[in-house]
């Protein structure tokens, strides 16, 4: 489903150049949930942004659902196929658009006609209900906002969801709700997840395989069994594991 090979992403050029991702290679199968972990600034988000065309410059090979991507432009089928949920629910909703506007606009961009019924259904799907339909972001809690963001991502009925630390800005109690929601819709819609997080237990809960990143490089790809057994082959991954479990 997602096949990434030798991906380099950098910002700026010449002496300004920051190599955010170097020679990243991994693949995600259809229906699988794949995690990307690593410390802050290791380039996790950047990989997602490169896939979606939000990163300015990259090289290597990105293949999504058999399609090879080029440059920054993506076509309509890509947007229908691949959607992203952002890290910070407070920043990912337009402060002056109501929930209804957000979802309605997205639906019309994807060419749907029966917008009203779909908005209602989407809200139901993410467990919000129509009570929230006409609220503005400032009238929503963090968890509710994240649900709206997920509903927006689901509007185009994508196959692949890119999740950029979807719960790191949320409370533990709300985190559980969102993670459950994500599991539910994955099962309902047969989605493929590529999920970024720095929280190993969360990745362990959600994913089947994961890649550990450090300084822009993938140091190790392992599966969740290895994770639970705390058996990492790379010393960095091991230290990461130790730190999370020590609590």
């Amino acid at each position: 489903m997602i096949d990434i090979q030798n991906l380099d992403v950098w910002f700026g050029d010449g002496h300004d150049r920051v190599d955010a991702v170097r020679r990243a290679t991994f693949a995600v199968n259809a229906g699988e949930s794949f995690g990307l972990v690593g410390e802050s600034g290791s380039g996790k988000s950047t990989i997602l942004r490169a896939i979606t065309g939000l990163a300015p410059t990259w090289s290597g090979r990105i293949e999504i659902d058999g399609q090879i991507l080029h440059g920054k432009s993506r076509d309509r089928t890509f947007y229908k196929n691949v959607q992203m949920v952002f890290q910070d629910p407070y920043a990912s909703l337009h402060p002056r658009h109501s929930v209804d506007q957000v979802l309605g606009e997205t639906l019309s961009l994807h060419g749907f006609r029966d917008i009203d019924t779909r908005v209602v259904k989407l809200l139901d799907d993410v467990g919000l209900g129509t009570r929230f339909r006409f609220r503005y972001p400032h009238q929503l809690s963090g968890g509710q906002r994240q649900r709206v963001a997920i509903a927006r991502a689901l509007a185009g009925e994508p196959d692949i969801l890119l999740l950029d630390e979807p719960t790191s800005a949320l409370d533990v109690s709300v985190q559980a709700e969102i993670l459950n929601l994500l599991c539910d819709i994955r099962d309902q819609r047969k989605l493929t997840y590529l999920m970024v997080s720095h929280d190993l237990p969360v990745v362990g809960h959600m994913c089947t395989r994961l890649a550990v990143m450090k300084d822009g490089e993938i140091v190790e790809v392992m599966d969740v069994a290895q994770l639970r057994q705390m058996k990492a082959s790379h010393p960095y991954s091991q230290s990461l594991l130790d730190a999370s479990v020590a609590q």
Partner: protein
Amino acid sequence: MSDATTWRAWLLTDAPTSRRHARLASFYKGWLSLRGNTMAMVGLGILVGLLLMALFAPYLAPHDWKAQDLGNRLQPLGSPGHVLGTDSLGRDILSRLIYGSRITLYIVTLVALIAPVAGLLVGTIAGYVGGWADVVLMRITDIFLAFPRLVLALAFVAALGAGIENAVLAISLTAWPPYARMARAETLTIRASDYISAIRLQGAGPIRIITRHIWPLCISSLIVRVTLDMAGIILAAAGLGFLGLGAQPPSPEWGAMISEGRRFILDHWWVATVPGLAIFTVSLAFNLLGDGLRDVLDPKDGGIE
């Protein structure tokens, strides 16, 4: 429970039931916080008064605003029949003031419709598109900013001929660059935000993003700025009038009235002072309202949470 309280509750709900409800509720909350600001309400009151005055000018004005009476010129304040006295041609100052409010409103509205919109357009395009468009547009903005303002306005008026419309155009021409800069700076921060990335991921094009997503966010700070600049605008028109290039006689434009009256300022001070005070009051009102609106609209100051 009385009707009023239910209305209030309906408007203050955090679970609106329809689009209209949501919009009304958010307006109402803004209104409430504006209402809490006494100074802003004073400003608003003055402006509403101005509006009413302009609307009902024919009923309010005690005299014909252009009726001359050379034998009865330069009457002092409080003279019989002419509460605010008469001007150099013996016209009733109060009546002229009342009719002049129409022109003042006209100037203010027109400039407010042109300059910020032009600035918004240039600024958001420059900010969002970036690259060459940005460089070119910002250079143009810089040029207009660095240009002596009065020269630009005078040249423009001189080229098109004196008159209120041209004065307004000229003022707008000099007023847009700051708005463009502001809109651009704001666009730059908005552009990088997640919600813009999100809508781009839905396949939205640049025009849609600029008009539907960026403009609504720039507009609030723009409105605040415009109301704060209103005083400047009225005074700029007055300044052009002072140089004889604003409204054409016998139009009772307040700036023109001051410049007519300034010849008598030492002996018949009210002729220039009365319209001066009118300008002062109105610009003060705009300023007060602008300050209040800032509190309501500017998210940074924590108006709307």
